[in-house]
């Protein structure tokens, strides 16, 4: 069946089986493999995307159910080489090790900060409680989200940081006037 979803601001249409899960639509049909496919049982949260702005486990949504809806994936966080403050926070505070849970964590953090720009630690822990991280013990993830809360205007990786400061990817003029 024909399914049309707004993914990262672009309307995409594909002819898929009705039973196709959103996570597979994103990964296999659109090649957006930043959304990870983890436990398949609605537990681990690796597949979390923003669905109409809120974190949802994309392994538990049929692609046809998302028809007409707005889906944002981790690929949408960075704009023209400018990282979202939550991405910066995870870099600054070692919010990841293996990185498998990271896309979902980043999106949940983004949605949390959009609703609550200054969340307390317990609020952050509650927000990420549906997502499993086997590396960090969560402490650095919580710290990373706090970092993002404290640096809402974080524009781009600081000069001197590995992978940062060179190339055309980082442009001052690419900073949105109003960060989300």
């Amino acid at each position, binding site marked *: 069946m024909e399914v049309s979803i707004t993914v990262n601001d672009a309307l995409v249409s594909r002819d898929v089986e*009705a039973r196709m899960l959103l996570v597979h639509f994103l990964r296999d049909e659109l090649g957006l493999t930043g959304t990870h496919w983890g436990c398949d049982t609605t537990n681990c949260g690796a597949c979390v995307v923003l669905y109409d702005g809120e974190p949802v486990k994309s392994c538990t949504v049929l692609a046809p159910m998302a028809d007409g809806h707005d889906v944002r994936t981790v690929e949408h966080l960075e704009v023209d080489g400018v990282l979202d403050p939550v991405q910066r926070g995870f870099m600054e505070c070692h919010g990841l090790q293996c990185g498998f849970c990271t896309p979902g964590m980043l999106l949940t953090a983004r949605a949390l900060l959009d609703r609550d720009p200054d969340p307390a630690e317990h609020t952050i822990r509650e927000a990420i409680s549906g997502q499993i991280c086997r590396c960090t013990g969560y402490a650095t993830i919580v710290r990373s989200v706090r970092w993002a809360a404290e640096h809402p205007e974080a524009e781009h990786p600081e000069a001197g940081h590995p992978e940062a400061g060179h190339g055309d990817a980082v442009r001052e003029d690419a900073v949105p006037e109003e960060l989300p």
Partner: protein
Amino acid sequence: MQVPAPIEYARATSVADAVGLLERLGEEARIIAGGHSLLPMMKLRLATPEYLVDINDLHDDLSYIEEDGDVVRIGAMTRHRELLESELLWTMFPIFRDAERVIADPPVRNRGTLGGALCQADPSEDLSSVCTTLDAVCVIQGSSGTREVPMDEFHHGPYQTAVGHAEMLVEVRIPVRRHGGSAYLKVDRRAGDWAVVAAGAAIWLEGGLITDARVGLAAVGPNTTGIPEVSDALRGRPPEEDVFAEAGRLAAAGCNPVTDPRGTEAYKRHLADELTRRTLRIAAARAAGRTA
């Protein structure tokens, strides 16, 4: 990879449309709301509908929590998160927020619905226990109109409810009674898991005595268990510890748990006892305007 078996999919544009689709598509058609119980069961082939009727487009019409005279009406498509964040429910029926805090996790609560939870009728499901505790009435709509079924008659067995094939649960009505308090507690193995045992309690006080009380247990029998003996034992008594202890003993004796990987029958009876006492204690304090 776990994916559901092949299905046909249709979207309902109204309750009448959903009921019409169910009638037309036959017994193998099933409503999907949030889908966070149904889709995992479909992946495991524990549920094998051939057609899904998606009612998420009805969310705007069927998502509401409003006081209406002597009832609070809650739309069946109200999502867990909306129940959790409702100040009206927190003020009038704090049991909802107690329960929602421990139902699954935030992303799941963004999708799952009240109606879906009740109609899924998992014996370990929390909102069935909450609605049983509050003596709620379910409003079910079919092609010939609506009918009302009290929670005590809603469950027909595990995963079976009073909702007929071509019918849809559209609203839950909670009676509003003065001087009441309510609470919910759950023991689970890890955050977001199904209950080992959970208990809800509601209590109404007047002149320092219990005028009525209700207890609803989850995960201790084929369905959510309301225990009338507990209500009988509490009415007319003072809200005191020995009274709650008697209620706990009755709850432990009156439920029907089985030994499974979550715990032994004896442990679950112990939990039914202890959680009944604790929820009654909190509910009584709330009814009296105190913090437990």
